[in-house]
């Protein structure tokens, strides 16, 4: 057990360093940030001084190690654009992104799990068909388009909800609904098929034969066993969810790290792009570590593996 956890921790760490390295190399290939910082007609000495001040004149591996050791201490550099610490910029906005992603995930789970269960229990009925048609449609709809259409309908036409910005709970509705479709359809179908698989098993029949109520059979026996593929997919879909948040945030002007990253890409503000990508990826890696450890709780057989 301890070995398993330690091994997972080690691979998590190497992946995190790998992500940092990939982003670092990519963004250094993307152009000279100094050219963007100084006036176009700046003399070469100014260019050289700026480069030196930012440490951009050192060899790449050295720059990377400096970056990495500082990042480990919570210093992600300074934004070239805002002239503020990247860590501070991210800290200010990250809660909003997490709020958005969490709301979307919660919404997806609250809808997908009951919908999947009902579909599985009422297989072949109209309810099942309808739920699955909606799930398939949800998987195919591009979220940014859905977001625009929702804005048009609820904010422009009906004027029920605010279009942009954040602040109240109402501002959260449209972005969360749009973002949730990224996982909703897939999740509902997965819950349905995992439940179908489990419902045919002997232990479910035994539970029924024992005279257990349907609620207890479904939630206690079946869902618990169907949970492993569901938890896996939720863990993996987190990357989609966090990536989708970038797009959703730009559409709704939701002031999270997504908007920060999108602006930074345009401005070639690479400490920011680097910082956001690193932090988001770390969240994903840590979440998957948690998922891995959750398996152990869900399925004692894995403990030995």
């Amino acid at each position, binding site marked *: 057990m301890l070995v398993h956890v330690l091994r997972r921790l080690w*691979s998590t760490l*190497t*992946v*995190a360093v*790998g*992500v940092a390295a*990939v*982003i670092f190399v*990519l*963004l250094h*290939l*993307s*152009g000279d940030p100094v050219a963007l910082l100084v006036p176009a007609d700046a003399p070469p000495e100014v260019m050289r001084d700026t480069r030196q001040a930012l440490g951009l004149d050192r060899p790449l591996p050295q720059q990377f190690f400096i970056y990495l050791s500082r990042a480990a201490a919570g210093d992600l550099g300074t934004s070239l654009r805002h002239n503020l610490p990247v860590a501070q910029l991210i800290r200010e906005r990250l809660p909003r992104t997490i709020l958005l992603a969490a709301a979307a995930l919660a919404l997806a789970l609250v809808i997908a799990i009951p919908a999947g269960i009902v579909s599985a229990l009422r297989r072949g009925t109209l309810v099942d068909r309808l739920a699955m048609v909606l799930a*398939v*449609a949800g*998987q*195919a*709809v*591009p979220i*940014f*388009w*859905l977001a*625009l*259409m929702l*804005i*048009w309908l609820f904010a*422009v036409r009906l004027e029920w909800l605010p279009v942009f910005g954040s602040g109240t709970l109402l501002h959260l509705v449209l972005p969360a609904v749009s973002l949730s479709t990224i996982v909703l359809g897939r999740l509902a179908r*997965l819950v349905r*098929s*995992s439940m179908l*698989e489990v419902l045919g098993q002997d232990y479910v029949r035994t539970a029924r034969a024992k005279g257990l109520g349907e609620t207890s059979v479904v939630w206690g026996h079946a869902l618990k066993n169907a949970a492993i*593929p569901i938890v896996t997919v939720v863990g*993996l879909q987190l*990357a*989609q969810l*966090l*990536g*989708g948040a*970038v*797009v959703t945030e*730009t*559409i709704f002007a939701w002031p999270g790290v997504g908007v920060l*990253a*999108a602006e930074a*890409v*345009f401005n*070639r503000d690479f400490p920011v*792009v680097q910082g*956001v*990508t690193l932090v*988001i*990826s770390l969240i*994903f*890696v840590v979440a998957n570590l948690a998922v891995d450890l959750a398996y152990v709780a869900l399925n004692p057989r894995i403990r030995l593996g």
Partner: protein
Amino acid sequence: MRRPRVRPSVLGAGVVLAAVVLLAVCADWVAPARPNEQDITARLRPPALAGGTWSRPLGTDELGRDVLSRLLYGGRVSLAVGLLAVAVSCPLGVVVGLASGFFGGWIDRTLMRVTDIQLAIPTILLAMALVTVLGPGVLNLVIVLSVTGWTIYARLVRGETLALRGREFVEATRAAGAGETRIMFRHVLPNVVSPAIVVATFAVGSMVVLEATLSFLGIGVPLRVVTWGSMLNGGRTYLKSAWWITAFPGLAIFVTVLAINALGDSMRDALDPRLRNRV
């Protein structure tokens, strides 16, 4: 072997896809206008059924360009980019997965760690970073999409290969004197191809969406290139007054991806039902 019965949803999906591809290919003959042809006197005209005229069936945009024509021409680039991206990323991922699963050891560890690293970076962010490096352009977009897409095949094929590696037919072929490369490509590969094809089918849909997302954010194709994504990007400013500029290209993506997914579903059921919970 009995042929699987063709489901109505598959038939529908096939018809829709064939129509979309045909219309895109024949845009030169079908489209009422050139995609970038401007008519300043007819700006922001509504679609025919919403009070417009039949000469502009789906209305016009802010520069008086015909939405239907742009939709048809845009489909060309969107579909071509999606297909090309899959055509590059699928073989790449399959070879990586095959090598990883077949050789094992440090090759496997290295390749899978690289895969893990890439999977940890959200696709959109990776694509954004890559676009910053390569710059905009249709070819660059194909490269970006291909780079973001190979990991899923690598993971899948590695798993399949691992399961096959110890099987008797592989041993038998080796005993018969076949070289490792030959075993890998002639004997293992054919057995792992069908799950990869299933995944590739779904991937065409996700690539179309990813292209649209990047072009929508303004970092995909250059402005003059018409794709469904760039149409959406142009139309979002006029959402309040002219919904049709945004509604139709999105609908086109939606319907296309829906048809591709339906096709993928049925291919999975026919070729490899075990994948049901994985893709």
